[in-house]
């Protein structure tokens, strides 16, 4: 495996006077990750980020940048390899946009042509008109300034970029467009970004990895879906908020979490009368057909039986195989579509070897929708959205 771009090993930071900034931090960041560090104020998220470019030095433990202990790298040289964007933008007010963008290249003594070309290229990347290069920061709007702040951090082709609440001071619309921009740049240029924020929506939106900090400790670390599905403790749950969690349950739960695990099944060699008996007993109109080892083969339903039972002796004669199956880790929200669009009342759930695990019925879907809306006792906006989304096709179906 490729070497991680950044690794924290037992990192601890104690301030003068004994206040612990962060403690027991073990974290590996791979190249191309978008890592959001999130926590309340005083949780140590900024401290942790600032240790990467040695704006703070760790008290103990080590931080490896491309496998090399950063304590062995000269801080000035280290910082020139790492992009840096802060909340208050921090553009040099006495320098033109051009001089601001090419600041690190200038420190690295690039040639004029190279700097000029880089500045032009970066302006195109973020759709800033080139005539901005001769302007001063005060002549630009806040959003434009932070755009410059972002490309300035990329100007010397840094692979790793640190961002400390970069969009905190912007209005929501500008913030959103900058989030899109950063997310796009990160993917396109394959940068690794460490992004400190206290806005959980921002973190969930941008991150490939979320690191949740509380009181100087990492409480949970994982992909946003993972964290939403399995919050590590009450702190994380509170932090995420019930609204997001229930939304995520609907959005991110997989079919094996909601399926019924006792589908009515029958094996191939059974006779038709036996099948009808079973249907009557269990009050169903369809039986799922499996082989002796529980592998899904198809289904047999009452329609087929009524029209063909005279010609058939065993279930295998009337087997229909045109029913799609669901893999157990399929997302429920995708299932809903599949089921409603194709008019199935139920779909069997199988594992990757086609072994039957359970069944998802329309009734199960009703439960999911119900949980989203009323499950946690609050019929909030998001849940209402979901209602409109999932029940509408069902209503159409009933009308047929």
């Amino acid at each position, binding site marked *: 495996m490729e070497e991680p771009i950044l690794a924290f090993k037992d990192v601890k930071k104690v301030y003068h006077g004994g206040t612990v900034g962060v403690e027991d931090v073990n974290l590996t960041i791979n190249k191309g990750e978008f890592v959001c560090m999130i926590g309340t104020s005083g949780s140590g998220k900024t401290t942790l980020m600032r240790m990467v*470019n040695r*704006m703070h030095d760790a008290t103990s433990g080590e931080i490896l940048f491309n496998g090399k202990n950063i304590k062995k790298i000269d801080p*000035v*040289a*280290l*910082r*020139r*390899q790492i992009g*840096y964007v*802060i*909340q*208050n*933008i*921090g*553009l*040099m*007010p*006495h*320098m*033109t946009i051009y001089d601001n963008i090419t*600041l*690190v290249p200038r*420190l690295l003594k690039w040639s004029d042509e190279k700097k000029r070309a880089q500045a032009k290229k970066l302006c195109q990347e973020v759709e800033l008109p080139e005539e901005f290069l001769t302007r*001063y*920061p*005060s*002549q630009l709007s806040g959003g434009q300034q932070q755009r410059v702040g972002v490309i*300035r951090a990329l100007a010397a082709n840094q692979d790793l970029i*640190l961002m400390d609440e970069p969009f905190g001071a912007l209005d929501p619309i500008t913030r959103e467009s900058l989030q899109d921009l950063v997310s796009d740049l990160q993917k396109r240029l394959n940068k690794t970004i460490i992004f400190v924020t206290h806005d959980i929506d921002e973190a969930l939106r941008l991150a490939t990895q979320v690191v949740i900090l509380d009181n100087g400790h990492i409480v949970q670390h994982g992909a946003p879906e993972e964290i939403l599905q399995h919050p590590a403790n009450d702190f994380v749950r509170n932090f995420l908020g019930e609204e997001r969690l229930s939304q995520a349950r609907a959005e991110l739960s997989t079919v094996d979490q909601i399926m019924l695990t006792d589908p009515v099944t029958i094996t191939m060699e059974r006779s038709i009368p036996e099948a009808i008996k079973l249907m009557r007993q269990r009050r169903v109109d369809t039986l799922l057909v499996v082989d002796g080892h529980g592998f899904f083969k198809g289904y047999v339903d009452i329609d087929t039986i009524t029209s063909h039972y005279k010609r058939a002796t065993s279930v295998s004669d009337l087997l229909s195989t045109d029913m799609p199956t669901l893999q157990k880790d399929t997302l429920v929200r995708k299932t809903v579509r599949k089921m409603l669009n194709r008019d199935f009342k139920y779909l069997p759930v199988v594992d990757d070897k086609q072994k039957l695990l359970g069944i998802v019925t329309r009734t199960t879907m009703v439960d999911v929708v119900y949980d989203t809306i009323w499950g946690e006792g609050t019929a909030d906006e998001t849940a209402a959205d979901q209602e409109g989304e999932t029940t509408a096709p069902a209503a159409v179906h009933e009308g047929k």
Partner: protein
Amino acid sequence: MSEMGLWQQFWYYMTHNGSYVLEQFSRHFLIAIYGVLLAAVVGIPLGILIARYKKLSATTIGIANVIQTIPSLAMLSILMLALGLGVNTVIVTVFLYSILPIVKNTYTGMNNVNRAVIDTAQGMGMTRMQQLFLVELPLSVSVIMAGVRNALVVAIGNVAIGAFVGAGGLGDIIIRGTNATDGGAIILAGALPTALMAIIADLLLGWAERKLQPHGM
């Protein structure tokens, strides 16, 4: 002579002793400039230093404040005991009075540079010196210049008193006037150029201050 009006007398004096007045004018100016330059050479680095090491600032500015409270005539007399008569005593006096405005303005100027700007400068990989020369000084130079301007105007006034310890300058002409009977015109011949010098110095440095203010601010 006595039948002439004050202004006529003044004019008469100036036309007959023009070169003498001019000589004293330049001497006066140079004494002030030397003192202030010396103070700038010491005061600006000192101001930068105490802006970095804030613990030193209270003591340093405290001392400079105390110096400022000493009346200039008393200061001259005290220094005269140590340095004797002559121009050096005056230059040292000017130096001491200029320290406070220069140190204080440098300190304020450096402190007023936006923290975020310094943070990014450091975070992007500037050395301490690059931070100082590429960021902090350009952003505080106009405040520092305001201190120098202030110091120079005060210095021009103080140098006039320096004539008492034999340093020469326009103060010499003023003292000559006070010693003469009906010396009003002579006093004017010393006082008006002094005032003029102060005004011109103020205007010139004000202009320089604006010129040094970086673009985009």
